[in-house]
């Protein structure tokens, strides 16, 4: 086929960026002999005044950011059309906009979406990923000055789904980007929530939770590029693992460039191992080129279930099974509560409960 990527070298697994990923399971997304089908995979389920969706030829809407991610590079090669969602300047979108996926076939596909938030606009957008898919997917968020976007990305994929995704925000002066990533479904999810700034006074809050059971590989690679002065970032990801060969990877790269004076950043990753045979990799990286900052820190913990919490609850008559569920719900509640949507909260917690019951944890 003439559309096949030229000069493309598939990763071998020895690269730093791919060393944790089971490449045999990416479903052809990185295979140079397989073409990806371009798909406009996003639709709005609840139209709102102030928000428009247009499908644009890829040639007319180039990507805004540079990426060295091979899955993203591959996806961009094959993309024919881009979904462009725009939030009008100065608009306050009171109800969360819900995005569903369409046109996913379970064969190797590529999708690209740009979300542009106008000056001083406020919006919450919830992306609901479900069903089967083999998808190389890119979202870019272009936040104009003074805008606030809360983007919730729910990975509730079916069992065999493969999702290689990038979610990149470019945050202008005094704009705020809140990202909430929840990954519970899919066979292999490798998601890159990344952020760069294009003006001072901007901030990013990246929250996430993942829950992996038997054989799932859930990988989140965050990158915060502090390339402007006086920007703030917070990263808080929590994961739980249960069952044989459940594997999670969390990479938190924060880069404070020499010009990024006044940077304030903190990143945190906590993992809870609920059974033997599961593995959590957690790698925070902080690179600092200037000392003129407000603060920079990171923490990473991976631990087993806290027996003291279980004992405390059980000593009040609560059976061990219910006590465990309370503690696990409690562990995730901090992140799930931020979605501020009871229906989604209940759906996620029910899924976590039922998967816990399945693996007998």
């Amino acid at each position: 086929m003439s559309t096949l990527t030229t000069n493309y070298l598939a990763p071998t697994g020895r690269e730093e960026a791919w060393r944790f990923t089971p490449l045999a399971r990416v479903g052809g997304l990185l295979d140079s002999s397989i073409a990806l089908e371009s798909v406009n995979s996003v639709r709005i389920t609840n139209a709102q005044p102030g928000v428009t969706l247009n499908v644009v030829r890829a040639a007319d809407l180039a990507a805004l950011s540079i990426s060295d991610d091979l899955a993203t590079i591959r996806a961009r090669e094959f993309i024919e059309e881009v979904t462009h969602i725009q939030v009008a300047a100065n608009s306050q979108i009171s109800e969360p906009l819900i995005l569903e996926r369409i046109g996913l076939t379970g064969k190797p596909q590529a999708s690209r979406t740009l979300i542009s938030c106008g000056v001083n606009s406020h919006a919450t957008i919830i992306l609901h990923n479900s069903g089967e898919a083999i998808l190389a997917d890119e979202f870019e968020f272009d936040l104009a000055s003074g805008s606030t976007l809360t983007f919730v990305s729910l990975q509730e994929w079916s069992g065999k789904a493969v999702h290689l995704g990038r979610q990149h925000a470019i945050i202008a002066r005094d704009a705020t980007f809140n990202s909430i990533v929840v990954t519970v479904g899919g066979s292999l999810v490798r998601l890159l929530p990344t952020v760069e700034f294009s003006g001072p006074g901007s901030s990013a809050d990246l929250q996430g939770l993942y829950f992996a059971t038997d054989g799932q590989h859930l990988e989140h690679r965050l990158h915060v590029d502090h390339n402007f002065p006086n920007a703030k970032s917070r990263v808080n990801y929590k994961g739980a693992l249960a069952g044989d060969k459940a594997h999670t990877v969390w990479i938190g790269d924060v880069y404070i460039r020499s010009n990024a004076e006044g940077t304030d950043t903190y990143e945190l990753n906590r993992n809870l191992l609920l059974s033997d045979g599961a593995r959590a990799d957690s790698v925070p990286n902080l690179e600092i080129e200037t000392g003129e900052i407000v603060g920079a820190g990171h923490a990473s913990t991976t631990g087993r279930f806290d027996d003291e919490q279980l004992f405390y609850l059980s000593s009040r008559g609560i059976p061990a099974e219910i006590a465990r569920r309370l503690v696990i719900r409690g562990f995730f509640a901090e992140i799930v509560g931020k979605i501020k949507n009871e229906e989604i909260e209940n759906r996620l917690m029910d899924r976590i409960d039922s998967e816990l019951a399945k693996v007998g944890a």
Partner: protein
Amino acid sequence: MSTLEIKGLQVSVATESGFTEILRGVDLTIKSGETHAIMGPNGSGKSTLAYSIAGHPKYTITGGSVTLDGADVLAMSVDERAKAGLFLAMQYPVEVPGVSVTNFLRTAATAIRGEAPKVRTWVGEVKEAMKALNMDTNFAERNVNEGFSGGEKKRHEILQLELLKPKFAILDETDSGLDVDALRIVSEGVNRVKANSDLGIMLITHYTRILRYIKPDFVHVFAAGKIVEEGGPELADKLEEKGYAEYTTA
């Protein structure tokens, strides 16, 4: 009328160098309505006694028995012991992030009572109990013990005592870390529960201070893993005066 009977209880904990025996044959019988103060120096095994009865997995029972009205407590799981009517007010209540006090209390009450309490009466019940303990109403929305002050933690323990209505309560150094006002409020809570029920109390303390508020019927001196002297309230006065020296050097 219920009876909590501890006979020849021997308990060890696993340490790096093997098992260390902490309780060396404890005999103690508590009947409904009685208050027994267990007093002793630090490290004598008082808290081990409390946690062993509640079933903490850290402790291994190597001998003896604990029965509640003849039922073998040591054969019960931790939650079964609570359902049977035992309650341990902990010295260091555990933080449970993300679990609200409201949710926790209701889940516990449901487990203990065998059915979910009726919403309307339950809310009133909790409010009233909280008010009696001088607790702010927003307390219920906070996560269990998370960020609580020492006094708040202890009040929260006594709140549970009021709501769960056990047959026997073990109060493990409930007085520690409390200022005079908090000690009075907590003690009044315990006395209120006792006045309204047939509660038997095992009051573990290092100091005699709390005994001014909660009057014991019996005082037991605990040293080196067992009870070494028993008497009435007057024994506490002697301890106040002379300390534990004669028991620890003996």
